[in-house]
């Protein structure tokens, strides 16, 4: 799933079509499409190469995980957009 998000983002930032990325990377367009859909996941090595073909590097670094906001994001995901805006306006009121 993360590879799907990153490949699509790198391709769009590079302004490439899937066909153009296929030509650059030597991969089939259909393979790139399946990766972007998350239907299959590339190996880590293939992921790094496809990101590089878009003109980017994906630095890999181990950092301590901070999951302090995860629960709030989960709650937010279940709120309506209207409720999210109301929460923003309420939070502004409290922060002033």
């Amino acid at each position: 799933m993360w590879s799907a998000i990153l490949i699509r983002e790198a391709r769009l930032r590079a302004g490439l079509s899937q066909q153009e990325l296929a030509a650059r990377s030597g991969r089939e367009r259909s393979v790139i499409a399946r990766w972007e859909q998350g239907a299959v996941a590339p190996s880590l090595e293939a992921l790094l190469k496809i990101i590089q073909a878009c003109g980017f590097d994906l630095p890999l670094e181990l950092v301590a995980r901070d999951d302090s906001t995860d629960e709030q994001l989960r709650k937010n995901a279940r709120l309506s957009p209207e409720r999210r805006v109301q929460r923003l306006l309420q939070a502004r009121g409290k922060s002033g």
Partner: protein
Amino acid sequence: MADRPPFDPYAILTALERRRVSYVVIGAFARVVQGAEEITHGIDIVPSIRGENLRRLELALEDLDAVRVDAEPVVLDEATIRDESWLELRSPAGELKVVPEPAGTRAGYDDLRRAATREPIGKGLRPSVASTADLARMLAALGREADLPKLIALRRLQGLERALGPELGR
């Protein structure tokens, strides 16, 4: 206690909708609408830069009594807007930033509108809001270290959308 800047997103978006401006909401307000936990005092938009739409945007800005923060006159036409990275405006309803082509996008509006969705934010408004993926793409393209926590939150929201998609109606 410091004065809080005014912010009425409904007034800003109502003015844009009333003049039938074609735009996509981006930036912090869009991230909040998509589920991020942030505080903002303004709205950022990417307008279609077609001539007639820029005229409608100009009228909406007049309705809002919006002025540029640099005190320059507001000139919105296809030729001049291409030279602007963004227009920063202040109005009694809050701050409004007009960004013709945000970092990480190609051709701004036409790029973002494909994945943007109409989000019901209340008061009968359903503005077009950039997708979580596009919001992450734009934030990542800015390359600012200070934005990293926001980017991580967007990535987690992307993961939640994929995992909970049917449950969230997406």
